[in-house]
């Protein structure tokens, strides 16, 4: 989004450090995701991208520094904060059908009651968005890995999140499905009806990062700090064959390859 500079901060990391026992994973990492911003995290495998995302969701405690999401510490509960996390693995409940899996967050928000027909209609609509119509009553073991991941995306979207954290969401998918879902996600992001305020996506794909995000944060090797922020001043729909896209891709590639 063009005027990102003036927008309010949505997710703030201040000198964030995080270690597991003796293993320092993040050190002195500061970055800000502003409102109406789609950002990607890029970095070598094992550098701490998932850990960073989990810190944003309040799933791990920092050993130093601060995390604020909409001005609040996510460790103190994310009630009233519409935050959805999509994990690297689909994590579907094997005893629930596709539809029942997608309805899970709504049931939990209702205090464990059964979802209403209205909620079901909403879940159906989202399943259509991720191209899973016709599989509503299939169990996870009957779905391919890519389809399971799409169910997980639908489950992340069903609660109308304001903040969406995606950990290599489509890494397991074939390229065609991946492109289609990326487009769908961008469409959702651009949809003025959608309440989305910020998306943070971990990815391994330079192409994916450039096709979708407004800024790309490049992390260094462990303990990871922020190495570089790359602005992507391209309007949607983006054309991967455009000169600017190719130039940015070259720049990112050089950054990722360069030894820390």
């Amino acid at each position: 989004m063009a005027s990102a500079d003036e927008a309010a901060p949505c997710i703030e990391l201040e000198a964030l450090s995080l270690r597991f026992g003796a293993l320092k994973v993040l050190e002195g990492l500061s970055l800000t995701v502003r409102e109406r911003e789609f950002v990607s995290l890029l970095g070598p495998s094992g550098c701490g991208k998932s850990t960073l995302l989990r810190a944003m969701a309040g799933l791990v405690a920092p050993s130093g520094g601060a995390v604020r999401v909409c001005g609040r510490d996510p460790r103190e509960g994310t009630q009233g904060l519409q935050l959805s996390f999509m994990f690297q693995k689909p994590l579907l409940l094997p005893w629930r059908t596709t539809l029942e899996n997608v309805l899970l967050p709504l049931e939990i928000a209702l205090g464990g009651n059964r979802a209403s027909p209205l909620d079901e209609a909403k879940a159906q609509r989202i399943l259509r968005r991720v191209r899973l119509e016709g599989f509503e009553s299939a169990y996870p073991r009957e779905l391919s890995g890519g389809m399971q991941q799409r169910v997980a995306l639908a489950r992340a979207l069903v609660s109308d999140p304001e903040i969406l954290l995606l950990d290599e969401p489509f890494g397991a998918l074939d390229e065609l499905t991946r492109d289609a879902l990326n487009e769908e996600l961008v469409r959702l992001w651009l949809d003025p009806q959608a309440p989305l305020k910020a998306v943070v996506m971990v990815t391994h794909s330079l192409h994916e990062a450039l096709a979708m995000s407004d800024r790309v944060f490049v992390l260094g090797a462990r303990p990871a700090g922020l190495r570089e922020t790359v602005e992507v001043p391209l309007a949607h729909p983006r054309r991967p064959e455009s000169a600017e896209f190719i130039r940015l891709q070259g720049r990112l590639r050089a950054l990722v390859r360069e030894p820390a």
Partner: protein
Amino acid sequence: MKGARWLVPPGFIVAALLLWEAAVRALHVPAYLLPAPSAILASMDAALFGHFATTLGEALAGFFLASSLAFLAALAFVRSPTLERGLFPLAVTLKTTPLVAIAPLLVLWLGTGWASKVAAAALICFFPVLVNAVRGLKAADLDYRELFRTMNASPGQEFRKLRIPFALPYLYSALKVSSSLAIVGAIVGEFVGATKGLGYLIVLSSSHLETDVLFSAIFAAALAGIAVFQVLGWVERRAVFWQEAQAE
């Protein structure tokens, strides 16, 4: 041929019984040592059915009592690590004490009626269910629990919608084993002191050298064990439809 495959095990049993019958007749084995199957069949009467029903009733009562208590204890253990650390070793010690050693005490405390048998059956069922239920309730990966946390699920919701379903395969394999152990428990209780039941019949008929009655009681006990195991297996396949049993 394919459709008749289920006939193979009963076929073997019938063949073995026929061989047994023939051998006993041909070799003139005394009936107090080894009665012929036909004699055993002739000794099966309404009284046997009464003893069978008594033992099955005691066993099932003990089984349901122990399974419910064990499941509640497992829930408490999983919610309170202190409780688990304190009581789990005690549970394991009790588990390794043979029931035959405790059964006389149960009869002394609870009398020769049904209560001591229900207690014996419950005692033998309790620990396998407890151990497997605890293991099952912890089987949900950290990933899944984090997913539930990002959805702001309460601890109660996490139990109902995640941990308990995850525990079911573990629980049902324990229930299957316990159900036949419950028969053993009830019979051991009856050995020590009873006025009816298969255990009582076994003790009585062996002291009177009524070996045909003894055999019919043994067959009835085996039948009870197989029946409860099969019923539990049937329930398990429906309750845990999404996967094979994964614990033993």
